[in-house]
């Protein structure tokens, strides 16, 4: 049974000070310019740890930086390669549920199968202390991606803000040992604490202001696909800046190049890459299998919402909402989900109404003029075509059923 404890807010700083000895303590800090970013805590008394808002970026770059030297090479006397091996012990404090979920996804990418040594050496020395979100922010939709606002696992410790104290849950043995190492800070949990926490979790789940129907989008994509017009619309707007991928906590694509420092020495660099970049799939000879931009966006959105869903039973979007509103062309994942849900629904209804109209005219039950009038009424009011015709007395329900049966048989 993993531990559950209470820590008073007054004791958080002393606890963090203990943690920061021997480890790099990384926590969300509000700077003088108004941004909240994960920073290394050099002085716990002089940096303002801010748990009141979602940090503007995830903790991705601490485990998988935008650019890093994989190794240095020296071919002056034979070939020599050297690479950094040890990661520093790190405590990532104050991570939000979305960001922890993203790290779990990165674990799958970098540690399942062939292990990425650079990721592994950092990850294995990283302790994660998360904090659940009592109140989602404007763009959050982690409820729809099943990655928040509170987590069941994935953290070493997870805090819940109960006002003057935090409810502390351990998520694994390493979390337990943190509590055991500094028992002086932790109090036993009372029934009242448990009840209060439960209530907060329920309230948080009902607090989302933005509805992004990720599940419905998956189902629509599976059942009817995505209308070509949606891809066209997105493609005319996308600049290929790569920002949505760089800001995304689960985007893990990278490219590798060599940067010489002299004729026979240099570094092999790994740097983030984005699937919306033209060069991402371009071959040496100039051929590009994923071109134009439409196809690149298709790959991006379907990867997040469809292929990963098929593989992992959940999307690889964690609903952090950071990419919403930052797209230069105004075409983010939220808009895509909205378009897929509304367009395919509308499209299907449109199709079926037109088919029914055609069948009724072919069957000689209604003439062209009447049907056009009914279709116009349908477009205006949204009332189903059959209902309009029946109400007008042009067909009976029985005739309608007959025609519809015929349609089913035909298809």
């Amino acid at each position, binding site marked *: 049974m993993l531990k559950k404890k209470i820590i008073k807010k007054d004791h958080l700083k002393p606890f963090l000070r203990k943690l920061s000895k021997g480890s790099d303590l990384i926590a969300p800090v509000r700077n*003088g310019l108004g941004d909240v970013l994960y920073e290394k805590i050099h002085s716990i008394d002089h940096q303002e740890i801010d748990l009141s808002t979602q940090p503007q970026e995830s903790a991705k770059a601490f485990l998988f930086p935008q650019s890093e030297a994989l190794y240095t090479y020296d071919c002056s006397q034979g070939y020599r390669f050297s690479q950094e091996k040890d990661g520093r012990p790190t405590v990532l404090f104050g991570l939000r549920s979305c960001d922890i979920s993203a790290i779990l996804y990165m674990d799958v990418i970098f540690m399942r199968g062939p292990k990425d040594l650079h990721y592994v050496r950092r990850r294995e020395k990283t302790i994660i202390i998360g904090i659940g979100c009592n109140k989602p922010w404007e763009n959050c939709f982690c409820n729809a991606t099943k990655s928040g606002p509170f987590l069941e696992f994935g953290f070493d410790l997870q805090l819940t803000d109960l006002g003057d104290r935090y409810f502390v849950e351990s998520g694994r043995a390493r979390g337990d040992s943190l509590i055991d190492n500094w028992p002086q800070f932790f109090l036993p949990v009372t029934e009242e604490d448990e009840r209060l926490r439960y209530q907060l979790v329920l309230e948080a789940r009902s607090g989302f202001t933005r509805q992004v129907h990720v599940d419905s989008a998956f189902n629509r994509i599976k059942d009817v696909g995505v209308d070509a017009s949606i891809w066209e619309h997105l493609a005319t707007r996308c600049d290929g800046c790569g920002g949505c991928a760089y800001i995304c906590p689960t985007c893990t694509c990278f490219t590798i190049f060599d940067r010489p420092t002299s004729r026979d020495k240099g570094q092999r660099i790994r740097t983030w890459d984005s699937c919306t970049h033209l060069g991402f799939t371009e071959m040496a000879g100039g051929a590009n299998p994923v071109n134009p931009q439409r196809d690149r966006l298709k790959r991006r959105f379907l990867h997040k919402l469809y292929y990963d869903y098929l593989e992992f039973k959940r999307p690889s979007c964690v609903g952090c909402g950071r990419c919403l509103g930052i797209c*230069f062309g105004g075409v983010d994942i939220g808009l895509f989900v909205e378009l897929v849900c509304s367009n395919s629904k509308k499209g299907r209804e449109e199709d079926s109404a037109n088919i029914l109209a055609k069948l009724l005219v072919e069957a000689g039950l209604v003439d062209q003029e009447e049907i056009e009038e009914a279709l116009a009424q349908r477009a205006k009011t949204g009332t189903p075509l059959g209902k309009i015709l029946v109400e007008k007395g042009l067909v009976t329900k029985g005739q309608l059923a007959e025609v519809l049966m015929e349609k089913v048989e035909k298809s």
Partner: protein
Amino acid sequence: MTNSIEEIAGSEVIFVIGSNTTEAHPQIARRIIRAVDKGATLIVADPRDTAMAEIADIHLKLNPGTDIPLLNAMMRVILREGLIDDAFIEMRTENFNALRDTLFAQDFDALVELTGISPELIKRAARLYASAQKATICYCLGITQHVCGTANVESIANLAMITGHVEQDYTGVNPLRGQNNVQGACDMGALPGVFPGYQAVSDEKVREKFARAWKTDLPEAPGLTVMDMTHQGVRNGIKAMFIMGENPVLSDPDSSAVEKNLSSLDFLAVADIFLTETAQLADVVFPAASFAEKTGTITNSERRVQLMQRAIEPLGECRADTEIIAALSNLMGYPMNYQEPAEIMEEIALLTPIYGGIYHDRLERSWGIQWPCPNREHPGTPYLHKYSFARGRGRFVPASHIPPKELPDGDYPFMLITGRTYHHYHTGGMTRASEILSREEKEAFVEINPQDAERIRVRNGQLVRLRSRRGEITVRARATKRVPEGILYTTFHFAESPVNRLTNPARDPVAKCPEYKVCAVAVEPADG
């Protein structure tokens, strides 16, 4: 810019002219697109099908170099249909009658004919722009890089003023600045005619003020402009030059002439972060620190003065340009001892009224202050011309069509337009040194209409030779309907295809801005 960038998102009608905003000013394009998504009307005037033109409500696909006829035609519609803002014209402007007379003296059909656009489209655009409550014009180098650049800009101002679209939020005239600190370089008096803050060198009082502060006597004679130094420097009596952070050999028009001129100097010193084409001609080259390696301020298009803080130690033996200049000055017997850039900014604030309240310690706590900012307590100025223009009343300066200096003819049958691409920047020194950016766009290209390509027997992706009266370059052809027939479009980022060997050094008589945008060229397969 008279407005802030953020304000563009709140406009009802946005008129983009001479700007490939999506590629050259992505953050402005982002605001325009946001406005469009909120229901704003977008009018784009551009000879090419730019990404902005593709989402526009009205695309005025004008012939290159016919901006004045287009603007005049629009103004005629506005006048004729009574859509002018009488009150604004009466209270805030002068010389309106001259504009009206000029416009009515011009034949509408003839103007329309010059532009090559349908009259109906021009009328619609004019009505939409004039009748909007909040209308913004964004223009860029497609307007200024012409022999008639100044007249183009004045015509835009005319259009904005007859409709009163200048004095409120979300409404104004916005030239988009090309470089991160082109605004600041002007503000700081890196111009032959003015001291920092646009204080005229010719003004004796101003000279006295600076002479007192700098404790030395100051020259009175007006200085030479860029091209008078880079092209005709030697002819103008220049013997020695010091060039800081510019690469005129690649960036100036008719670059062969620049190379020749700079090579004939007695002495040339260059400070740059790379050994540029210009630095290669120098007698002394100083390795400069990049923007990540130094502290200093820059001023963006919307006059926002912002602080860049040193992130890393200078690489190798590099030094910040301030240190290089100070060291030179000290050696020449004029002591410049500044502890840090903040101290230089204090001197700037002291001598430059528009920067009077701008200090580094203030900038450390905010994302910049928009000038004019006369004192420490002043919060800065988000938009200009609120109650009056800088010069009092806004003056209408009527203009008539001035064709480009060089038009296509039998020998050089194509009109070449130059511009910037999304992934690169100017002479490419910085962006081509970035691995991802250079991967995205490896080499120069010339856009050619498929019909033209077929006629001259050029395949998509084939190398072609472009020739003008001044030189020739080789570049890869990209057949696309984005350009109309008879027009070619190419970029200027690649030293291997130095397009400024082709461009025309003919200049606007006032601004002295050369006609980069258009020149006449011939094109043929490179291997034939």
